[in-house]
């Protein structure tokens, strides 16, 4: 069949999306199945596996996992980055080879922790398990308990998934969630990036940069992780099917007005060796209607799945609509109506618990990074924080350079810049538990990575022998910073299986009461009975026994008096909970000494009125019955 006939048929039933996907971008020639440089990838996997096998994580130092990993592990990472650089420098790109390199890099970065640790990292992950277990236990929600039960999409899906897989709790697979969510995100970003005006080389580099620099760990078993996948999918659908050829009239007018300035700095566009397939679009009204319904359904799910993601997506989509980058611009208004419509009935709860009204408009206060609370933190914690700052600056700096380079070359730039930087509007709305900056980085990173890839301008060997080094060198730099940023706090982020089991047993068997945790770092709310327990801290910020100079650990009468006084429900018992991860956090953040919790244990062992409820695997629980 001739191509013209095919085109006519295609226009009737299929958007150019499919055409672009089917039409090969490069002439087809017989390809070899295996090249000598493919052994690089295999060697990298072998080195990495050897490194994972050798690592000993029993006693992590203040520098976390990176300090415990053997040199052969890093050699494996370096070899895979070299393999990627080689694959990206070929005249004809091989999606299979680049895809394999990407998959292996994701496995190395996000599959290492579940392989070397017996239990999931992060104390806050266990709260999500508790909500899932609550649903499994009760079969309904209670929106008065916490914010999670007001945004139940992720928890309902996970509870359903547990029953289908046949496990008692998400604990069975939670530690693998980071790898799984990153792989899902990779599939979604690969689809999304095909709709962006990038070369094939830039698309692949952007993917590698994203996964080499997403240090904020949004990918654990959480609503945010699923929210990222859904958000990427929404943009994938929107940009693949609803892109416009022509920008809004006022944007064109503004561009024309700015042309005299542009002439000073702009140079003629360099011909690129490969333009990727661009922006497929819906072909018919019915096709477009189907796409709109699909986007609306996925966005609707996102609205009740996560508290923040739908609003960031809304900001970005609205910005695209304003510059006329997408057709059916009213979709932004529809999304706003859906998001606000869902939020309105929950506003009172959110405002009461998170002080939303107080933080609205406090741009700089909301933008303050979590590191402003580092205080007396250890050198390891500070090093991890510095690495994360440097990595963020590297990516944002490269994205700014990429934006300038694209603009000077006359390439489409405005939409990418808007998508990359519009998430900062989140700072006007709230601090999101002092995590607003992290979320802004998260939602800007896909687009930041695209702009950064344009800054690096990956080229084939035939174009520049030295130029091919740019991409792997920048990726290596990003990954080098990623390790301390992502794994640097593991001395306190890691929980032992005994610790997890001990706390779970406590939640499942203890009478309702208030838990006084020695520090805010334990498998909190891990059970479906989590709503029966109040929580307070003994030490650290907001701790009732923090003391002026030194934490109170040896004065039994003061401890008992303080706990009785602060117990919100005197008719119920108070529990003091001590775990190994609490001590690790206290040491890392500098509010506890190595012997402080041992001293507290000794004091409560002999204190009148207290008895030891649980003691195993380093977990100790003391109970103070109601007076």
């Amino acid at each position: 069949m001739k191509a013209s006939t095919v085109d006519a048929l295609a226009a009737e039933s299929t958007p150019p999306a499919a055409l672009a996907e089917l039409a090969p971008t490069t002439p087809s020639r017989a390809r070899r199945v295996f090249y000598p440089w493919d052994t690089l990838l295999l060697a990298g996997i072998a080195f990495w596996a050897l490194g994972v096998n050798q690592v000993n994580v029993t006693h992590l130092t203040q520098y976390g996992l990176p300090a415990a990993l053997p040199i052969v592990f890093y050699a494996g990472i370096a070899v895979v980055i070299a393999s990627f650089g080689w694959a990206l420098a070929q005249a004809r790109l091989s999606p299979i080879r680049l895809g394999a390199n990407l998959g292996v890099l994701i496995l190395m970065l996000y599959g290492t922790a579940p392989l070397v640790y017996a239990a999931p990292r992060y104390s806050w992950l266990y709260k999500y398990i508790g909500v899932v277990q609550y649903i499994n236990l009760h079969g309904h929600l209670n929106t008065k308990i916490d914010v999670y039960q007001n945004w139940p999409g992720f928890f309902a899906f996970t509870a359903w998934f547990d029953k289908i897989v046949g496990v008692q709790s998400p604990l069975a697979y939670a530690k693998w969630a980071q790898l799984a969510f990153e792989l899902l995100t990779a599939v979604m970003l690969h689809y999304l990036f095909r709709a962006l005006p990038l070369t094939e080389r830039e698309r692949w580099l952007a993917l590698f940069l994203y996964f080499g620099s997403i240090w904020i760990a949004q990918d654990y078993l959480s609503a945010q992780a699923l929210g990222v996948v859904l958000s990427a999918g929404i943009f994938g659908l929107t940009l693949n099917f609803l892109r416009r050829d022509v920008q809004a009239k006022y944007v064109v007018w503004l561009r024309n007005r700015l042309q005299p300035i542009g002439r000073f700095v702009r140079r003629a566009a360099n011909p690129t060796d490969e333009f990727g397939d661009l922006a497929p679009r819906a072909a018919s009204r019915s096709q477009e209607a189907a796409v709109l319904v699909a986007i609306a359904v996925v966005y609707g799910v996102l609205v009740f799945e996560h508290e923040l993601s739908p609003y960031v997506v809304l900001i970005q989509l609205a910005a695209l609509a304003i510059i006329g980058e997408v057709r059916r611009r009213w979709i932004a208004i529809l999304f706003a109506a859906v998001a606000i419509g869902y939020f309105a009935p929950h506003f009172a709860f959110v405002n009461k618990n998170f002080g939303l009204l107080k933080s609205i408009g406090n741009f700089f206060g909301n933008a303050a990074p979590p590191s402003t609370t580092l205080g007396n933190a250890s050198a390891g914690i500070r090093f991890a924080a510095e690495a994360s700052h440097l990595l963020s600056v590297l990516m944002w700096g490269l994205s700014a350079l990429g934006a300038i380079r694209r603009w000077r070359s006359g390439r489409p730039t405005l939409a990418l810049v808007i998508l990359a930087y519009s998430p900062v509007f989140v700072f006007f709305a709230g601090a999101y538990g002092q995590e607003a900056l992290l979320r802004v980085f998260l939602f800007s990173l896909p687009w930041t990575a695209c702009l950064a890839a344009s800054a690096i301008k990956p080229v084939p060997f035939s174009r520049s022998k030295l130029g091919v080094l740019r991409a792997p060198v920048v990726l290596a730099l990003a990954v080098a910073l990623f390790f301390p940023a992502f794994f640097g706090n593991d001395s306190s982020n890691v929980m032992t299986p005994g610790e997890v089991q001990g706390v779970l047993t406590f939640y499942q068997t203890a009478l309702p009461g208030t838990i006084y945790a020695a520090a805010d770092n334990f498998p909190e709310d891990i059970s479906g009975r989590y709503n029966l327990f109040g929580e307070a801290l003994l030490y650290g910020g907001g701790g009732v026994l923090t003391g002026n100079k030194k934490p109170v650990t040896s004065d039994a009468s003061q401890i008992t008096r303080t706990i009785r006084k602060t117990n919100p429900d005197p008719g119920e018992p108070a529990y003091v909970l001590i775990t190994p991860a609490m001590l690790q956090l206290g040491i890392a953040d500098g509010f506890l000494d190595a012997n402080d919790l041992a001293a507290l244990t000794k004091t409560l062992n002999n204190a009148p009125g207290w008895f030891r409820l649980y003691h195993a695997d380093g977990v100790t629980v003391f109970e103070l019955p109601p007076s």
Partner: protein
Amino acid sequence: MTERSRTTVAGFDLIDVACVVVAVAVGVAVASHQHNAFRTVAAVAFSMFVPGRAIVSNWPSMAVRPQVALSILFSLAVLTLLATLTLWVGYWRPLGLLEVECVGFGVALLVGLVRRRRGRQEVPGAVAHAELADSSESDA
């Protein structure tokens, strides 16, 4: 219709049939209270792909090639929506919901399969696109 496009369309059919098999497998594994690796693999494959593939398969312009990303996206969205709805309406029966989903999405996949087979004679869009790949390559 070239040999290549026949192979391509047959590949889509194979994916749909495989998804039906997965839907049946997970339904049977759950109904027979199995607790093994087979159930785990089938359940993961079902939750991540099958419902989305059932939607994509019935979306003619999408069905011209295996849209992995969209299948995953729609699967996650639809399953989250259904699970949450049953929770909100006070009918939390995850296993019952699964049986309904297995039947519903299995039927949808079969409908998509039949429609595509009929479409090869009546609306040759899918075939045309499969052939486009062939013609582009042979022109080159």
